[in-house]
């Protein structure tokens, strides 16, 4: 039980969880009458088959998962159970569109930062309500952040049907943002946009913050034991909780802004297929490590990109992919627990 084997476990756990998921998914596919080998092969081709599949599909779809996954990982690290990344993402997307549309003539170097900052601010604002309820009244954030998601979704629905509806008035969507507000391409000839790089940079920054700075250390201490933080660390846990909550909301809001500015260029109902929820799986599979979130976000991006191919080439309905995503969460939790049980048995014996 040296510290060395303990340090290895997060990667091992994640790998074991993925393997377990594949095994269970294969069994279920077989039960459902689909040859698992064909399904997985189609899924893999769809995600990694060509350079363009990988960059324009897998990585593009990984981008919102990367940002929301980082948001969730940061919050969970501070023991803030922010289940509200989905709502914060919607708030961010709405704010981004509103700002970009309001600045039609502005040059890109102004409008893009303004758009993204507005998205982050809106996400933080959306998170501030549950944060205030948690720190001020002790209301559990699992419920409040979750419920705020529905408020955000309905608000988005209302806005794209009414006040922000496109001037043509045909679809329930906003006007397209001006071209200056579009995020530039990251890899020429593909659809991968600057948002992915922003995600990577935030992942590195968060990792540095958590492991190398006093503030990040405090956040980890509060997450590990709020009592010990207050008694032995001699600092108040509450400001740290606020910070984690708002920063998490801001990053999730940024995910919405990046998606609007980089991919859809407008806001409409159903912008997100539930990234804010998948983000929880992304963060947990990464064991809340920001750098690992980059990897797990790409894994889930691949699932999403490969799902369509699986339906097309192997005839497996795409909803199976949603099932696989859910299996990953179950597998992470199960593998984690059984590892802990094994480890404690080992250390006792």
């Amino acid at each position: 039980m040296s510290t060395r084997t303990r340090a290895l476990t997060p990667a091992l756990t994640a790998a074991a969880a993925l393997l377990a998921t594949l095994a269970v998914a294969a069994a279920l596919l077989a039960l459902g009458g689909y040859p698992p080998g064909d399904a997985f092969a189609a899924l893999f081709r769809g995600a990694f088959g060509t350079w363009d599949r990988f960059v324009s599909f897998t990585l593009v779809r990984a981008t919102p998962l990367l940002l929301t996954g980082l948001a969730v990982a940061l919050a969970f690290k501070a023991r803030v159970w922010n289940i509200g990344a989905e709502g914060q993402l919607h708030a961010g997307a709405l704010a981004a569109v509103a700002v970009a549309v309001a600045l039609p003539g502005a040059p890109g170097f102004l409008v893009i930062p303004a758009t993204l900052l507005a998205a982050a601010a809106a996400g933080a604002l959306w998170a501030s309500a549950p944060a205030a309820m948690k720190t001020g009244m002790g209301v559990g954030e699992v419920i409040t952040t979750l419920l705020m998601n529905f408020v955000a979704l309905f608000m988005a629905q209302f806005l794209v049907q009414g006040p922000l509806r496109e001037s043509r008035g045909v679809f329930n969507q906003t006007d397209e943002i001006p071209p200056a507000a579009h995020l530039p391409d990251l890899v020429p000839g593909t659809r991968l946009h600057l948002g992915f790089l922003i995600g990577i940079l935030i992942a590195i920054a968060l990792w540095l913050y958590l492991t190398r700075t006093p503030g990040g250390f405090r956040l980890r201490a509060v997450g590990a034991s709020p009592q010990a933080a207050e008694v032995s660390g001699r600092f108040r846990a509450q400001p740290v909780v606020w910070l984690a909550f708002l920063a998490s909301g801001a990053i999730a809001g940024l995910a919405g802004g990046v998606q609007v500015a980089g991919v859809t260029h407008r806001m409409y109902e159903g912008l997100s297929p539930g990234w804010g929820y998948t983000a929880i799986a992304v963060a947990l599979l990464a064991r809340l490590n920001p750098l690992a979130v980059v990897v797990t976000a790409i894994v889930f991006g691949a699932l999403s990109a490969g799902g369509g191919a699986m339906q097309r080439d192997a005839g497996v309905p795409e909803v199976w992919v949603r099932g696989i995503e859910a299996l990953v969460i179950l597998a992470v939790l199960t593998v984690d627990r059984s590892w802990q049980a094994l480890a404690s048995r080992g250390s006792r014996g």
Partner: protein
Amino acid sequence: MRDALRLRGVTRRFGPVTALDQVDFALAPGEIHGLLGENGAGKTTLARVAAGILQPDAGQVVIGGEPLGARGVGGARALGVAMVHQHFSLVPRFTGLENVALFDSAAWTRRGTGSPGYRERVEARAEELGLEVQLDVQVGGLGVVERQRVEILKALMGETRVLLLDEPTAVLAPQEVEGLFAVLRQVARAGAGIVLVAHKLDEVLAVADRVTVLRRGRWVLTGEAAGVSARELAEAIVGAGVDGGGGGVGGGDAGGPGTVGGGGEDAPKVGAAGAEQAPEPRPGDDVEVARLRAVTVSTGGPIPLRGVSMEVRRGEILGIAGVGGNGQRTLAAVLAGMLPPDSGEVQLPEEVGWIPLDRTEEGLVNEFTISENVALAVHGSDDYRRGPWLDWAGVAETAAALVRDMDVRADSSATQAGVLSGGNQQKVVTGREFLRSGELLVAESPTRGLDVKATVAVRARIAALARSGKRPPGVVLISSDLDEILELSDRIAVMVRGRLIPVPREDHNPTAIGELMLSARGDGDP
């Protein structure tokens, strides 16, 4: 007459700790039997073994002549054993009646519906016992006295041969205690034997027919309550140092005459440090590092402080004895600078080391490494920063030095705190808090839950900190373990109900201090 309850040679261990060591105990029908002892003496364990909640590792529990064997709680209940726990086991959202009915099979018909006339039977039983119980109010909305009555009624609904009460008076005001005792006398008259676990001497002597004293898991004495004095009992409870004070940790009288402390007084100190500390004169010994004047806290802390005054000087250990829950925690928080008092004057050094009571919840972050736990104290200091970064290399160096100096048995400073033994964890906390402040160190029951060897080691570390170097800190040692207080302290005070009573030097013996600890003397003052 057949005993209502008999324990024969009962031993119960929790890991390395022996909570009960071959204890014999007999309870006659119709008697109230007071069970006395310090915190951790094994009183609650004895009650829980008798109630079938815990299985003894050795020995036998016999209830009304019938061995309980391995039948557990259900078996004990069937034989007529009822227990009222210190922490009530009531459902807050249920009414009193619903709580009583919950575990009473007589309340239900075979088909699972309410038994007709049950309410009347509950009311009749309550009246018989002289218990005024609110049956129709949600228990969560009741005061502690009313809740206790529900709990007692619940325990006594069935045929009761043995009633076990764990610290029932701890939550009651003095005038409420008399009401409880009236009920107990009533129950005893009806023929049940009652075991009353308590640590307040005067209360137990007021109601009990016989008393039994446990110390460190061992039986010490049993006698008629009328035949023993409070002084004898106090001595038995805290141990007058004749038996070596619990397995070689060092009896109260150990240690030679030291010359520690200010003013060069030549009065011999009780248990001054160990023999390895050569008495040496230190300059600046009598420099005061902390001072409290008439400090009162009535809010914020769990138990109020009432007019506490004290001062701590460099190089001395001020021992604060007392039964847990008399305001020690509040005092520690005030001394650590974490709790501003409502009134009174507080002078403290800029940083205060605090070894908190709960090592694993408050003293350490278990999943952090030793280095990271050290960083809890130093992460705010400029010495451990490089620009915006925390200087982990510097922290690791400091932690490695701490591991060495405090003799922590760990692979390295990168070892997780959670995998260390209790004693080594406490050494990490002690070393870290000393790092935090070389001025004042507050140690709250630093050896609680440690085995004998670790206890010796941690005490030696604390003594060494206070008595070595050019600028030793002042140490406030808060402990309910009288041996510990006597072994380490230069001066002693006793905490009773939020008041701090200084103990004159000639009274530095277990009997006098024990009596103070167990008295209610703190109440008389204006």
